[in-house]
C-alpha cells in the first residue's frame, strides 16, 4: 500500500494497467513491480520446477521471481517494466491461474526431484528419450511462452565512441562523469534504470546536507547541459570485450504506451571507449532459511527502494533481519515513514548499531529459522539464545550483505578476489585493460568514500588520456560505516532456497558435493544453480558458501564460476537487429536492372548481385521454354546479356606484365596490346583460384576480368601478392567493376548488330577473335572485346556505367529486330555447358589445372601455385578429371551432385568414381548434358557408367565424352 509523502512518483498522473486480466491503477514513475506491490499483489509468479508461489524479491534487473509476459514478450522483469497506460501483463508458468496452479503438485514430489534427477532418471530405457521424456519435459519446462508468430517489434543496433564510458549513475558514477565531463572529455554515462542516481533514489542518505536524490538530480542537470556528455538511461552495459569495446542494451520503446512505427523497442549498442569506469554498485543477497521463498520475504534494500522511491510499504507489519549494519536503515526508514516495524532482528550477538533508543523492538543474536503462510508470509519462526518463538508479520526485509556488481570486470577471463571485511568478492585491479572499478562495485560500502573514489578514478583516466584534470569539491554523505558478520545459511529442518528461479536448495548443493560434483563449475551444472535468467546474481555467493562448507574449503579456494556476457538477458532480435529478411544486406544492381525487371525477368542472387534468370515472353509458361528460345536465338541469330557483374580490375604500371606473369600460370608479357588472353590463376597450394580473360589495352595497361563470385577474393589475392611477395614491382591496380557496364553480344548476327551501332563499322577482317580496342558509339568511346563465353561469334562491349541502361535498351531493341533477344543466366549456363566452359561449379576449390585439362597453359616461369601444383598426387591417372557426361537416353534428366559408379557396382560412397558439377537440357543437341569429374576421366571417353543421385531419385546410365559437346573445333567463335 502507498505511504503518504514518500516517493518520487507523480501522484497527479494515475496510470491504468492490468495484471492477469485484473485492472489496477498506478502512477507515473512506477514500475510494474512497485504498482503491483502498491495494489497489494504479493503473489507475482510461480517457480520453474516446483511451481511454488513467489513474490517480488528485488527492485532491480536481478529480479528472480517477478517475470511476466507483456506485448507478447516473455520473461520481462516486472522491476524493469515502467508503467504505461494500458500495460497488460500476464504472469507465467502457471495453469489455470497464478493462485491455483495444477503443476504445483510437483512440489509434493520434491523429495524425488532433487539435484541430478533428470540425469539419473531419463537415462533409460534409451528409446524413451525421443518419444516420451523429451516431449514431456519440453511441455513442462520453460518460463514464459514465445509467441507463435514472428516478433514484429522493431529492434536496432548502433555504434558509439567516447573517451570515457561510465557504467552506472549512482554516487560514484556521477562523480566520475562530473569530473570527466567538466574536463571536456567525451563521456557516455549508461545506467539501466530509467531514473539515474542509483541507490540515492532509494535511500534517505543526505549529501552535503541535501537529500541524496536531489543532489543526484543537480549533478544530472549539469551533466545534461554539457555537450560532451551523453546520458543513456535504460541502458544496461552487457559485456566487456577486447579493445575497449562494450555491448549495451538500451530499452527504447518498452515504456511507451503507443510507440510509433519508427520507435524501436530496443537498441543494441557497441560502444568503443578509450577508458571505462565501472560503477555498477552492488546487489544485496539474502540468507537461506527454511521456506525463505514465501511472497513477502524480500531484500531489505528492495523494501527501502519501494518505500523511498515509490512510496510503497511492502507490508503492514514488516520484520527486518540482517547480519550487517545496512539492514538497520530499513527499520529506520520504515519507522520514520509510519510503517509498523514488527522487529529488527540482527544475527550478530552484540552489534554496535543496536545501541541507543529505537522506535522498534530490537532482537540481537537472532536468526529466522522458518516461515509460514500459503500464498504470502504470515509469520516467522525466530530463534535467539533464549529459544524459538513465532513473530507475526507479513513482510520480512532480509539482508545478508552485498555482492559487488563486478561482472563486467570478469568478462576478459580474470577472476575476482575475496575480501574478508565485506564478505564478498571484489574485482581484480586491471582485469579489463582500460577499466577501473569504483564504489560499491569495488567493495566500497560508504557513500562518502564512493564519491571520492569516483572522482579520483576520473582524474586518473584524464591523466591517461592526456587531458588536464579539474578541481572538484568532494561532497560528504551522512551514512556511517558498514560492518558485517557473514551468515549464509540457517541450519534447520525444511527446504532453504538458494536459487529461486531454478528451485535449488541448500540440500541440493550439499548433495552435489557428496556425489563429488565438488568443483564449483560441476556443482553449478549438476544442480542448475545459477543457470536461470538471473544467472545466479541472487544465489551464487550463498551457493558457493554452502559448497565451500560442504567440501571443507574456504570460499576464496572454492572460487567463482565464470562470468560471461551478457549481464542481463538480451533478445536475439536486438543483437541481430537489421538481420531479418534482407535486413541491411547490400544489394548490387546492374545498370540494366530496371529494363530487365520491366521485361519481367525473375532475378536471382549471384553473391550480392541480382541477375536475370530468363526473359519470359507471352505464351511461355515455363522457364525452360524461355531458356530454350534464348539459347536458340544465340546459336542462330544474336543474343544480348549483361555481364557487368564479372570483376574488372584495371592494372597499370611498367611492371604490370611481369606481375600478371607471376599471378597467372600462363604468360601475359607476350600478349600484344590490343589482344585478349584467357588466364588461369592458382592458389599457392596449387589449386585453381579463378579464371578469366585479361586484355592488354597498352604496353603498361591491362584490364583483368574475374568471375562474379571471386571478384573480391581475386582483388585481395592480388594485393597480397603485390604487397607481400613482390613489392618491388611498379604496378597499381583498382577495381573498376562498377565503373563499366559490359554487355555480351553473341551469335552469328552479332557483328551485324554491332555495326548498326558503331560510327565506323567493323570489316570482316578488322577485329579478329581475341582482339580488343576502343570503338566509337554515337557520342562516346567504348571498349570492345572479341571474346565468347557461348562459343558463338561474340563481342563484349563496355561503356562507362552511366550509359549502361540506355545501351542495354538499345541493344535489346536492335537484337529483337534481327530475330534475337536478351538472354539470362539459364541460357548463359546452357551455352557454356554445351561448350565445356568452366565456372565455379567446376573450379570449386579442390581442382587443379591438370584436373580441368589446362595443365598445358603452365609456362616455364615462376608463378603462384607452380611448385605445389607439381606435388605428388595432384597429377596423373588417380586424379578426377573433368569430362562430359551424356545420358544414354538423351531425354533422361541427370542432376548436379549425382555420383558416378561402374555399371553393376552398388551405389555407395566408397564405389564412387566421380561426380557431376553442372547439368542442363541442351536444346541445341536435344539431350541432357552434364559436366563432372571422373577418375582418370580423359582416358575413359566412350565408357558407360551408372549415375546415381539418391536425393533426386536419379539412377541411369551415362556415356563419358569430351567436355566440349558442341563445335569442338571452335570455328563458330573464330569465324
Amino acid at each position, binding site marked *: 500500500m502507498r505511504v503518504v509523502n514518500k516517493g518520487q512518483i507523480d501522484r497527479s498522473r494515475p496510470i491504468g494497467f492490468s495484471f492477469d486480466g485484473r485492472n489496477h491503477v498506478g502512477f507515473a514513475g512506477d514500475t510494474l513491480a512497485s504498482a503491483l506491490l502498491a495494489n497489494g499483489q504479493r503473489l507475482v509468479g510461480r517457480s520453474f520446477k516446483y511451481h511454488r508461489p513467489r513474490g517480488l524479491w528485488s527492485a532491480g534487473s536481478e529480479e528472480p521471481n517477478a517475470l511476466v509476459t507483456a506485448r507478447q514478450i516473455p520473461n520481462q522483469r516486472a522491476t524493469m517494466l515502467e508503467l504505461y497506460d494500458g500495460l497488460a501483463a500476464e504472469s507465467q508458468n502457471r495453469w489455470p491461474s497464478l493462485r491455483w496452479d495444477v503443476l504445483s503438485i510437483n512440489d509434493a514430489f520434491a523429495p524425488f526431484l532433487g539435484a541430478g534427477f533428470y540425469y539419473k532418471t531419463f537415462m533409460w530405457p534409451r528409446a524413451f528419450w525421443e518419444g516420451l521424456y523429451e516431449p514431456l519435459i519440453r511441455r513442462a519446462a520453460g518460463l514464459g511462452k514465445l509467441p507463435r508468430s514472428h516478433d514484429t517489434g522493431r529492434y536496432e543496433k548502433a555504434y558509439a565512441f567516447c573517451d570515457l564510458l561510465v557504467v552506472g549513475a549512482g554516487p560514484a558514477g556521477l562523480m566520475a562523469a562530473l569530473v570527466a565531463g567538466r574536463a571536456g572529455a567525451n563521456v557516455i554515462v549508461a545506467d539501466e534504470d530509467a531514473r539515474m542516481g542509483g541507490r540515492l533514489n532509494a535511500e534517505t542518505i543526505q549529501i552535503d546536507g541535501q537529500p541524496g536524490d536531489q543532489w543526484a538530480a543537480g549533478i544530472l542537470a549539469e551533466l545534461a547541459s554539457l555537450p560532451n556528455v551523453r546520458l543513456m538511461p535504460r541502458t544496461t552495459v552487457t559485456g566487456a570485450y577486447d579493445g575497449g569495446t562494450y555491448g549495451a542494451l538500451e530499452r527504447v520503446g518498452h515504456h511507451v504506451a503507443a510507440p510509433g512505427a519508427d520507435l524501436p523497442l530496443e537498441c543494441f549498442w557497441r560502444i568503443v571507449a578509450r577508458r571505462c569506469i565501472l560503477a555498477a554498485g552492488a546487489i544485496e543477497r539474502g540468507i537461506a532459511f527454511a521456506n525463505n521463498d514465501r511472497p513477502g520475504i524480500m531484500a531489505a534494500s528492495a523494501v527501502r527502494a519501494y518505500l523511498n522511491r515509490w512510496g510503497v510499504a511492502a507490508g503492514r507489519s514488516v520484520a527486518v533481519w540482517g547480519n550487517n549494519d545496512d539492514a538497520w536503515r530499513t527499520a529506520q526508514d520504515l519507522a520514520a515513514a509510519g510503517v509498523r516495524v514488527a522487529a529488527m532482528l540482527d544475527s550478530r550477538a552484540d552489534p554496535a548499531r543496536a545501541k541507543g533508543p529505537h522506535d522498534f523492538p530490537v532482537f540481537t543474536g537472532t536468526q529466522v529459522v522458518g516461515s509460514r503462510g500459503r500464498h504470502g508470509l504470515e509469520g516467522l519462526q525466530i530463534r535467539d539464545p533464549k529459544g524459538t518463538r513465532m513473530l507475526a508479520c507479513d513482510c520480512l526485509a532480509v539482508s545478508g550483505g552485498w555482492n559487488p556488481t563486478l561482472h563486467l570486470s570478469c568478462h576478459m577471463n580474470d577472476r575476482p578476489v575475496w575480501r574478508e571485511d565485506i564478505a564478498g568478492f571484489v574485482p581484480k585491479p586491471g582485469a579489463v585493460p582500460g577499466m577501473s572499478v569504483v564504489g560499491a562495485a569495488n567493495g566500497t560500502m560508504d557513500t562518502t568514500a564512493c564519491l571520492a573514489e569516483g572522482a579520483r578514478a576520473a582524474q586518473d583516466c584524464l591523466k591517461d588520456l592526456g587531458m588536464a584534470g579539474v578541481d572538484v569539491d568532494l561532497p560528504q554523505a551522512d551514512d556511517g560505516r558498514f560492518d558485517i558478520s557473514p551468515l549464509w545459511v540457517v541450519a534447520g529442518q525444511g527446504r532453504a532456497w538458494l536459487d529461486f528461479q531454478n528451485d535449488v536448495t541448500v540440500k541440493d548443493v550439499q548433495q552435489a558435493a557428496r556425489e563429488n560434483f565438488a568443483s564449483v563449475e560441476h556443482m553449478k551444472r549438476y544442480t542448475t544453480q545459477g543457470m536461470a535468467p538471473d544467472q545466479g546474481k541472487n544465489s551464487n555467493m550463498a551457493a558457493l558458501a554452502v559448497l565451500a562448507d560442504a567440501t571443507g574449503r574456504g570460499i576464496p579456494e572454492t572460487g567463482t564460476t565464470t562470468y560471461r556476457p551478457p549481464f542481463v538477458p538480451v533478445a536475439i532480435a536486438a543483437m541481430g537487429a537489421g538481420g531479418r529478411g534482407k535486413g541491411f544486406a547490400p544489394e548490387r544492381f546492374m545498370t540494366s536492372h530496371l529494363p530487365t525487371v520491366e521485361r519481367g525477368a525473375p532475378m536471382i542472387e549471384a553473391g550480392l548481385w541480382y541477375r536475370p534468370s530468363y526473359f519470359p515472353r507471352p505464351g511461355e509458361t515455363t522457364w525452360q521454354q524461355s531458356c530454350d528460345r534464348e539459347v536458340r536465338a544465340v546459336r542462330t541469330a544474336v543474343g544480348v546479356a549483361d555481364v557487368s557483374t564479372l570483376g574488372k580490375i584495371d592494372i597499370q604500371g611498367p611492371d604490370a606484365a611481369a606481375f600478371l606473369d607471376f599471378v597467372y600460370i600462363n604468360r601475359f608479357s607476350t600478349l600484344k596490346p590490343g589482344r585478349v588472353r584467357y588466364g588461369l590463376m592458382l592458389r599457392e597450394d596449387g589449386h585453381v583460384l579463378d579464371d578469366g580473360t585479361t586484355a592488354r589495352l597498352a604496353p603498361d595497361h591491362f584490364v583483368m576480368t574475374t568471375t562474379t563470385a571471386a571478384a573480391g577474393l581475386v582483388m585481395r589475392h592480388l594485393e*597480397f601478392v603485390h604487397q*607481400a611477395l613482390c613489392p618491388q614491382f611498379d604496378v597499381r591496380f583498382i577495381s573498376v567493376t562498377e565503373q563499366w557496364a559490359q554487355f555480351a553480344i553473341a551469335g552469328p548476327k552479332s557483328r551485324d548488330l554491332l555495326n548498326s551501332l558503331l560510327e565506323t563499322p567493323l570489316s570482316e577482317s578488322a577485329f579478329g577473335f581475341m582482339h580488343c580496342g576502343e570503338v566509337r558509339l554515337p557520342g562516346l568511346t567504348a571498349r570492345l572485346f572479341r571474346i565468347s563465353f557461348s562459343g558463338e561469334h561474340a563481342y563484349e562491349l563496355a561503356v562507362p556505367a552511366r550509359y549502361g541502361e540506355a545501351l542495354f535498351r538499345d541493344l535489346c531493341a536492335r537484337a529483337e529486330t534481327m530475330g534475337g533477344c536478351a538472354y539470362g543466366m539459364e541460357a548463359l549456363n546452357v551455352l557454356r555447358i554445351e561448350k565445356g566452359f568452366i565456372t565455379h561449379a567446376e573450379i570449386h576449390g579442390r581442382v587443379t589445372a591438370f584436373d580441368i585439362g589446362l595443365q598445358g597453359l603452365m609456362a616455364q616461369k615462376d608463378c603462384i601455385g607452380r*611448385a605445389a601444383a607439381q606435388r605428388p598426387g595432384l597429377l596423373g591417372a588417380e586424379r578426377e578429371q573433368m569430362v562430359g557426361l551424356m545420358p544414354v537416353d538423351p531425354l533422361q534428366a541427370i542432376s548436379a551432385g549425382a555420383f558416378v559408379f561402374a555399371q553393376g557396382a552398388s551405389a555407395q560412397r566408397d564405389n564412387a568414381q566421380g561426380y557431376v558439377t553442372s547439368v542442363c537440357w541442351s536444346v541445341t543437341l536435344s539431350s541432357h548434358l552434364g559436366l563432372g569429374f571422373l577418375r582418370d576421366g580423359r582416358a575413359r571417353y566412350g565408357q558407360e557408367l551408372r549415375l546415381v543421385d539418391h536425393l533426386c531419385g536419379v539412377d541411369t546410365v551415362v556415356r563419358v565424352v569430351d567436355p566440349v559437346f558442341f563445335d569442338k573445333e571452335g570455328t563458330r567463335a573464330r569465324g
Partner: protein
Amino acid sequence: MRLSCPLCGPRDRREFYYYGSDDYLNRPHSDPQADASSGGWSDAWEDYLHLRDNPAGRLRDLWYHEGGCGAWLAVTRDTSTHQVFDVALVVDLKGKAGS
C-alpha cells in the same frame, strides 16, 4: 576486438580479413626451370604451406584491411590475453627485408 591500421587508425575487427601466420611472407625460392615431372616441390614448400606454430602467447599474423585501405598488415598480438602489441604494413616489412 580492434586493430590500429597504420594508414587508417583504430578500426573495428569487422573491417579486417584474417589470413594466417606471417610465415606466408617468406615464400620459398621457386625454380622456374623445374619441369612438371621433377617438380619444384620441396620440404621448404611443405613447411611454408602447412606447418604452423600454435603458441599460447605472442604471435604475428597477417590481416587485410578489406573494409578500408586495402593494406596487408602484420599484427603482433598475444593469443591468450588478446593484447595487440604492434601493427605494421607488410610492404614496409618486405621493403626492409629486401633492402
